[in-house]
């Protein structure tokens, strides 16, 4: 495997890991949503993300050609091999936390995957095209609910503001490009950070303003590490639960 392919595989894993970990988080809420309709919507989003993770993983597995399929990539890697953003592994917390996390992620995901539809890599562009329809809906839904909560009662406003303040430090990582990201940009595969960040800030700013929520400063200190395999303490527990069966009965077919 040449270096060029290695960077692309790493990049695909990041995309897959983001979708997989957030899907796992949302699945935890199955049967616990605040209303039946919300419950269905959350699990729909979780299923969409899981489908996207499968597409990215399958492509990454084929490309790296080391015999790892989507299951091996999801179930047989430990926390330090995961490359998801720290944002998506954060606990669900209360419903405002879940939705603000979703909204921050959806906004990035929408612009990121939107740009990937123009990727020089045809396969990536194809997967992006397919995913973007789902993500467009996710973004509309989470944005709408953030406005409803922020501009709702005094209590829902307070919860939403707290969630925004607490999750804010995990929103910079996506735009903090490392060697792998820069190689992808250079090859015309991925979009540049500056443009994405401007789009993200503009949309998040609009929605938070409508939600009467104070936006934290964009230049605030940002947490990072997920893309390099350095995670918060939450990911290990999430994986222990997710991977239990495969670890206990390795190689079982299902």
């Amino acid at each position, binding site marked *: 495997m040449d270096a060029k392919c290695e960077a692309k595989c790493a990049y695909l894993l990041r995309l897959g890991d983001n979708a997989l970990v957030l899907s796992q988080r949302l699945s935890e809420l199955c049967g616990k949503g605040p209303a039946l309709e919300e419950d269905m919507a959350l699990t729909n989003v979780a299923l969409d993300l899981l489908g996207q993770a499968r597409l990215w993983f399958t492509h990454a597995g084929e490309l790296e050609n080391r015999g790892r399929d989507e299951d091996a990539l999801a179930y047989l890697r430990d926390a330090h091999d995961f490359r998801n953003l720290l944002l998506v592994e954060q606990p669900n917390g209360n419903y405002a936390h879940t939705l603000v996390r979703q909204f921050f992620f959806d906004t990035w995901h929408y612009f990121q995957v939107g740009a990937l539809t123009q990727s020089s890599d045809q396969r990536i562009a194809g997967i992006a095209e397919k995913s973007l329809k789902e993500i467009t*809906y996710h973004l509309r839904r989470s944005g709408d609910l953030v406005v409803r909560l922020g501009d709702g009662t005094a209590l829902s406003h307070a919860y939403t503001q707290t969630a925004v303040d607490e999750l804010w430090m995990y929103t910079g990582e996506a735009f903090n490009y490392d060697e792998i990201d820069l190689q992808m940009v250079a090859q015309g595969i991925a979009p540049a950070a500056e443009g994405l960040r401007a789009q993200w800030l503009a949309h998040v700013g609009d929605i938070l303003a409508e939600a009467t929520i104070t936006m934290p400063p964009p230049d605030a200190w940002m947490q990072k590490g997920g893309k390099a395999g350095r995670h918060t303490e939450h990911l290990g527990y999430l994986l222990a639960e997710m991977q239990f069966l495969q670890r206990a009965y390795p190689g079982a077919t299902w």
Partner: protein
Amino acid sequence: MSKEWPLWEVFIRSQHGLAHKHVGSLHAPDADMALNNARDVYTRRNEGVSIWVVRAADIVASSPFDKAALFEPANSKVYRHPTFFPMPEEVKNL
């Protein structure tokens, strides 16, 4: 919940369907969310569908007690039924 989340009736026209059909009901705080919820609950997001949501309170239904008055007179007057006209083969969906 019944006060803040009123009941909505959902009508959906499927991709190749000719008319909206009543598919069920759901609770939602307003029309926008009723639409979103209907999409999640009843369409599994098939493309090309059209959804109508109507507040259940806005629907007026006929009463079962009026059945005789409303529908039975028609049955005694066969000339009201368009069954005496031969239909051309080409005409479908009638």
